[in-house]
């Protein structure tokens, strides 16, 4: 498995599927409403075959409770646009990674007050010493920050604190 740009946002080639993709791509993450499922790289495929539409999503974390809301929202949007026969499937492979998040999505995160993932997901096998790049405060852009808790308000985030502006903030962990 080689996570890369080609699997991040595989917009379909045919026009009918593209139309449905563009609709599904508007659905937002219920926990981080500035990000669409397309920004996240969670939307993996949309296929329109005659009257039948199949949408494939991949979860960010195995236990992420937001998946069900995203799936329901995709159905609501497509049904609202007249697609009657819609199926939403969940796939695990290849495993989702923060590397698939779009640059636009990262910029939106920062504006929203959440630090975007720094760097790429780990290459395995990882070395003996863990290195963590500095995380930039989304409020004052200082790099003088520290981790308060690796597990934050949702599975995908850690809690940080800025030592310059003294504000706490969420950081979207590299996965």
């Amino acid at each position, binding site marked *: *498995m080689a996570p890369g740009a080609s699997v991040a946002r595989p917009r379909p080639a045919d026009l009918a599927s593209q139309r449905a993709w563009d609709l599904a791509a508007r659905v937002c993450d219920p926990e981080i409403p500035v990000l669409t499922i397309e920004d996240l790289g969670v939307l993996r495929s949309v296929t329109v075959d005659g009257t039948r539409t199949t949408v*494939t999503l991949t*979860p960010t*974390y*195995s*236990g*992420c*409770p937001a998946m069900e809301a995203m*799936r*329901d929202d995709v*159905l*609501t949007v497509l*049904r609202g646009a007249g697609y009657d026969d819609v*199926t*939403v*499937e*969940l*796939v*695990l*492979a*290849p*495993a*989702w*990674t923060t590397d698939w998040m779009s640059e636009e999505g990262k910029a939106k995160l920062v504006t929203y007050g959440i630090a975007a993932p720094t760097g790429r*997901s*780990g290459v*395995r*096998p*990882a070395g*003996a010493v*863990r290195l963590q790049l500095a995380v930039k405060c989304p409020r004052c852009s200082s790099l003088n920050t520290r981790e*308060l*808790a*690796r*597990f*934050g*308000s949702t*599975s995908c985030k850690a*809690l940080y604190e800025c030592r310059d502006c003294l504000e706490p903030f969420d950081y979207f*962990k590299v*996965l």
Partner: protein
Amino acid sequence: MSTPSRTDAVTDVVTDVVTDAAGGVVTDAATHAPDRGHDHGENEGHGHVEVDGVELSAELVEGPSVASHDVAEYALWLGDDSLVLAQQLGWWISRAPELEEDIALGNIALDLIGHARSLLHYSGAESDRTEDDLAYWRTEPEFRSAHLFEQPNGDFAHTIARQFIAANYLFELYSRLAGSADATLAAIAAKAVKEVDYHRDHAAQWVLRLALGTEESRARMICGLGDLWPFLDELFVDEPLIDRLEGVAVRPSTLRGPAWDAMAPVLREAGLDEPRGFISSGGGRRGDHSENLGPLLAEMQVLARSHPGASW
């Protein structure tokens, strides 16, 4: 094994109706399901019925995904390990030493529930049972979890000792299972290993903090490791099933070295010796459990059994 009184179609269905008891859900789903085709006005309100039917039939990997009997049994072992550990960890929410730790242990439990759901879903497909059937409607001897995972939470150091062993074992297991000849197991493992990597780092940080903290915290860490270490060996026992799953399952005995290599540097840095003492005979894979599993299952299953089919 089977629970004939259960109506599988009902648990598969999540309706919009938030009901207090099973009866309401059953009647509602049963009367409305046949109407869906020609009643567009009602369709919106019961859209979820279709959705969850789909979720349970097509999930995880593309292509056919029904396990053979042996693979289903193996997935059950791994799924039960995660499910039982997650249930234990859930107890800590609101009781951990600090708020951040409530959240950390809750998040770890949530990841484990995710792994358990994937594994039990895959396992159950072979016998036409859902993940909920397997979680809530099996009795104690039908669970296949190893003894380590059902060990009591004890004090915080006991929980950290259990996490330290479990996360390191699971990391080594899933790293290898990601290369399984079984595509579904490989997909679940490749996803899980990234999450478990955070779990083992969490455990290592706490082992160091407790062992190098105060006299009291160090004594507790030593006690916790000593109490949990006897359950390490069971994880490395090659049961006959493993011989039949060459290339699919990870041979447990091959994990002993890597798991130790992962734990040893942390213990060394913490100034802790490898605990010596008795070794538990285990038996979880055959359904022989300690006195801890029964009460755990009773608490986990009581709601589902009191109100079959209830949803919210």
